[in-house]
């Protein structure tokens, strides 16, 4: 029998979770969440789906870790339950401590990186390097699936860099420009 502690963050809230597996039966877990213990019968399905019976209630839990970087301290998951997507971070408690320690020394600069939210094509930039922009101002237009999507400035600032020429195909997450 193995027992592990996790710290989870959903939105602003932190939750403590302890997982125990059953010593005899495969796929049976005892999970303590915020002080309450749940017996969970969880079976792995294809494509990172868990079929769970929680106090006999039947749920398909669909786990998506595509947003994770290859950093073991990145515990981001998008979890779909009955159609609803819950975005959360789930880390083993020692990893969480390591991460908190690392973050404490990191001073946020005023730099914001604008990345493409989806694969597509850069249609045109609406700003130039050195230009001052206001929050909400259009920065760049990315086309994906025949729709034009205008990305807007998340804050006031100055355009520090532009990454690529219009017409370039980009992946989701590709840096498009930097505002400081």
């Amino acid at each position: 029998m193995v027992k592990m502690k996790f710290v989870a963050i959903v939105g602003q809230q932190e939750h403590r979770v302890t997982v125990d597996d059953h010593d005899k039966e495969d796929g049976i877990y005892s999970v303590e969440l915020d002080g309450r213990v749940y017996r969970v019968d969880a079976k792995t399905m294809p494509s990172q789906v868990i079929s769970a019976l929680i106090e006999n209630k039947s749920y398909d839990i669909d786990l998506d870790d595509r947003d994770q970087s290859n950093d073991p301290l990145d515990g981001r998951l998008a979890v779909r339950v009955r159609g609803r997507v819950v975005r959360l971070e789930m880390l083993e408690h020692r990893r969480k401590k390591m991460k908190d320690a690392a973050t404490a020394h990191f001073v946020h600069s005023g730099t914001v990186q604008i990345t493409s939210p989806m694969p597509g094509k850069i249609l045109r930039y609406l700003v130039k390097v050195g230009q001052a922009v206001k929050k909400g101002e259009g920065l760049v237009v990315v086309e994906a699936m025949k729709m034009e999507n205008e990305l807007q400035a998340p804050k006031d600032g100055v355009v520090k860099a532009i990454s690529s020429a219009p017409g370039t195909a980009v992946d989701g997450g590709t840096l498009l420009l930097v505002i400081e």
Partner: protein
Amino acid sequence: MAKTARKIKKILVANRGEIAVRVVRTCRDLGIESVAIYSDPDRKSLHVRFATVAYHVGKASPKDSYLNIDKIIDVAKKSGADAIHPGYGFLSENPDFADAVEAAGLWLIGPKSKSMEAMGTKTRARQVMIKAGVPVVPGTEDPVTDEDEAKVIARSMGFPIMLKAVAGGGGKGMRRVDREEDFASAFRMAQSEARNSFGNDEVYIEKFLNQPRHIEMQVLADMYGNVMAFVERECSVQRRHQKLIEESPSPFVDENMRKKMATVAKLAAKAVDYVGAGTIECLVDDQKNFYFMEMNTRLQVEHPITEMVTGLDLVAEQIAIAEGKSLLAKEFTEDFRGWSMEARVCAEDPARDFVPTPGKVTHLRAPGGPYIRTDTSIYSGSEITADYDPMIAKVISWGNTRDCARERLNRALMEFTLKGCTTNTMFLRQILAYKPFVDGAYDTGLIEKYFRKVPTWYKEEHKIVALLGAAIFNFEKEKRLFSQIRVGAKPTAPNQMSRWRATKPNWSF
């Protein structure tokens, strides 16, 4: 239908995605051979795998492939096709293509080029309809090109107004403007989208009606001037002028109004000597006045709901008309059964402002059971590329009553399971359960109204279950990592639950 001399034996389907699959299916049912065409990223698409033969036509960009008239005509000849079905979008409403098909000695399954031309630009269509006595939405008769001049017209008409691409269709190049200060940017965006989508940046201005509904009439017209109108389709559930959920009949239309709309629809079709399947889209105000908006001179995306309530196969009807058969004297404005709804499943994330979510489909389970139909071109293992429309499937339901069709559609969307990219199925289900929709008391402002108060994307129950699932998921991942360290850091096998993926290095400067 009456017998005729000509018989179509092989059809080239000049399209991709679900509509190409849809047409190939009917070809199979009728014992007609099908010719698929495909662009680079579509080689593995279902329409290629389902068709009798398939030909490569070019790169991802539509102008190199699905809009490449010369190439498509060439393939049609080479493959021995005798007719071409254009589907919707792409070349389906292009009169040059219709002429090219005719010049090549082939049959287009659709109207003549002159009917397309008459309906092809919105301003021209409005002029033709006014002449034929069909009521149109108040607006400019001609395109407006100068931004300042356009703003003056808009102001005199009174906001809100609609900017529409003259060459438009399918909601593209269309912008609603509520306030004068938004006019300039909207005008430029509409022009830009119009140019990119249709190669023509002309736009015109229409009055925006109060609480308008989008209700449309399906027509079929044969070569001998017979026109048949069908029970209406209600398509008011729209986001950014893209239809999301359609139903037939409309909960707003009574028998009297249906009769009137059918009469006008037939008038409109006859005014342009229409042949084939077409749709007259109308805007309807809260007083049940309806105005011609445009005629789509091809099959609509939402044609299945008309099939479900009439028992017809509209693609088979299109083919029969192209073969020269004459229509039965039957009125499908009265002879329809039950209620049908369609939901458009799109690869986009409603919780992140509907950002497109292309990706690889790692798992697909289509819904099933009574009175559910799924039209799609994706499958477990297929690729959803960013090159084309985000609509990846249509889920259609039927029921004896509206509530029954609605509950079945809701259930089917719950069953629809796709892994590999986020879809809008939950959003569609929320709309199906949203009171104005449940009551049938909605207009094209429904989605906007829904978003006026920020929707709750999940409840406490979902959060708890998500936490339990995520904890177990990571528990197993940690156990595996731990055992790997002990046996000597073997890489995790692929296709297990864990996926520590190497991402691309970030671009730096």
